[in-house]
Each structure stands twice: as C-alpha cells, then as structure tokens.
C-alpha cells in the first residue's frame, strides 16, 4: 500500500512544474498548458485525499475542475487566436498595450 504522502509529493512536484512553466515559457500556448498541469496536480490531491478519508466529494470536485478547465481552454484559445491575428506573435511580451 502506498502512503498518502507519496501522492501528495507527486502532486506538489507537478504543481511546481506548472508554476515554473508559467514563468519560464514565453509562448501563450505553453503557458496555457502549464495551467492545465497545475489543475491536474490539484486534481490528484483531491482524489488521493478523497480515497484516504473514504469520501466521494474529492471525485465530485475533480469533475467540476475538469469542466472549468474545458471552459478555460476554450476561451483562452479563442483569445490566443484573436491576439495572433493582431500581432502575428505568441510572445506575451508583444501584448504590452491594453488597446491598439
């Protein structure tokens, strides 16, 4: 049997990787992917805690997190497409002005 702490450490490492990706990468699509990594790390903690305490609420929350992630990906990618049409670039530094 694997202790709960193992799952939690995996989750923490995944979350840190996602955070590092948001800061390090300068490509809007990769930044969105890093956000997905973070959401998945949190999902893993939820399922592990739910299993540990014999509670189904963890899995329910994961279901909602997935729905929100889908909505976020759809809107985020639409914004990325719109930005790319204006600037021909995916570099976040290219979008420094609020209006053009």
């Amino acid at each position, binding site marked *: 049997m694997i202790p709960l702490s193992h799952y939690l450490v995996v989750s923490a490492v995944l979350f840190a990787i996602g955070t590092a990706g948001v800061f390090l990468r300068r490509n809007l699509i990769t930044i969105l*992917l890093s956000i997905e990594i973070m959401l998945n790390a949190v999902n893993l903690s939820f399922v592990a805690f739910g299993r540990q305490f014999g509670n189904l609420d963890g899995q329910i929350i994961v279901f909602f997190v997935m729905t929100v992630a889908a909505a976020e990906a759809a809107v985020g990618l639409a914004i990325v497409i719109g930005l790319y049409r204006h600037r021909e670039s995916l570099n976040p530094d290219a979008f420094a002005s609020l209006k053009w």
Partner: protein
Amino acid sequence: MPETLVFWALSGMAILASALVIGQRNPMYSVLMLIASFGALAGLYIQLDAPFVAVAQIIIYAGAIMVLFLFVVMLLNAPQEDAAEWDRSHPLRQRGVMRFGALLALLLVIQLTWALLQANGADLPVGARGNPEALGSVRTLGRILFTEYVFAFEATSILILVAMLGAVVLARREGDR
C-alpha cells in the same frame, strides 16, 4: 509490491512528461507530452479506486481539451520561441536570474510538500479506510452529483454555455458582423 512499482512508474512518467512540456520549445511536442502526462495520471486515478475520474481524464482531458490545443497549434502554425532576437536578449535570460528562479521553484516544492504533509493521516497507506467498491462506483457518484451537488452541476452547465458563446464571439473575424 507490484502496486508500488506501478505507482513509481506512473508518477515518474507523469513528472517526466510534465517537465518535458515546459522543457522544450516546440508547442506541438509540448501538447503531445502533456497527453502522455495525463495518461499516467489516469493510471494513478485507477490505483486510487477512482475509475470514473480516470476515464473522464482520458476522454475529456486527453481527448477533448488536448485536441483543441493541437488544433490551435496547427491552425496558428506559430514560429518556435527562442529563434528570435527578443528571446535571447530577454532580461530573464541572464544566468543569475535563472538561478534565482530555480531556487524559488525548489522552495515552492518544499513548501507545498510541507503544507500537504501537515494533513491528518498523511503517513497512513491510502485505502486503509472506506469501502473501495462503494467509492469507485459510478452509481454512487452520480447519486451524489445529482442530489447534493445539483446546484453546482446546473451552474456548470451555464458556465459551459457562456464559455461556448465567448469562444465563438472572440474567435470571430472583425469583418463578420
């Protein structure tokens, strides 16, 4: 013992694939690596007696969301980062700043691990409590979802509708009004 082995293999694969997502420059490979990471996570969910979440992970995440990402990557046909001059001369590219960032990332891992390990019963093996049959069953899950969480469920459907409308409006061309 095989259980432990499978856990290490799956978690190693998830971490390695996630590291590769942010570790290289071609967004196409990033998306494919993230699909591998999600597959490994689905295996971990099965180990945690959550088959519904595992299947949803494969169908929704690896199936729907990642295909959306792949579609956009192919549609934009964006140049790889790091090829341009602005990338090499970026202020965050300096060595000292990068070392500082690596230190901060390590600190984040330590802090998160410490915070999570404060949880009650973190050393107990997973699955010591609760009945795996009842926990894994989609029937129980569905009953809870449509009774206790029915308001949140309906709210999510509105969220999806709004997101769909938003995506259509945002991705529309300027001249199409």
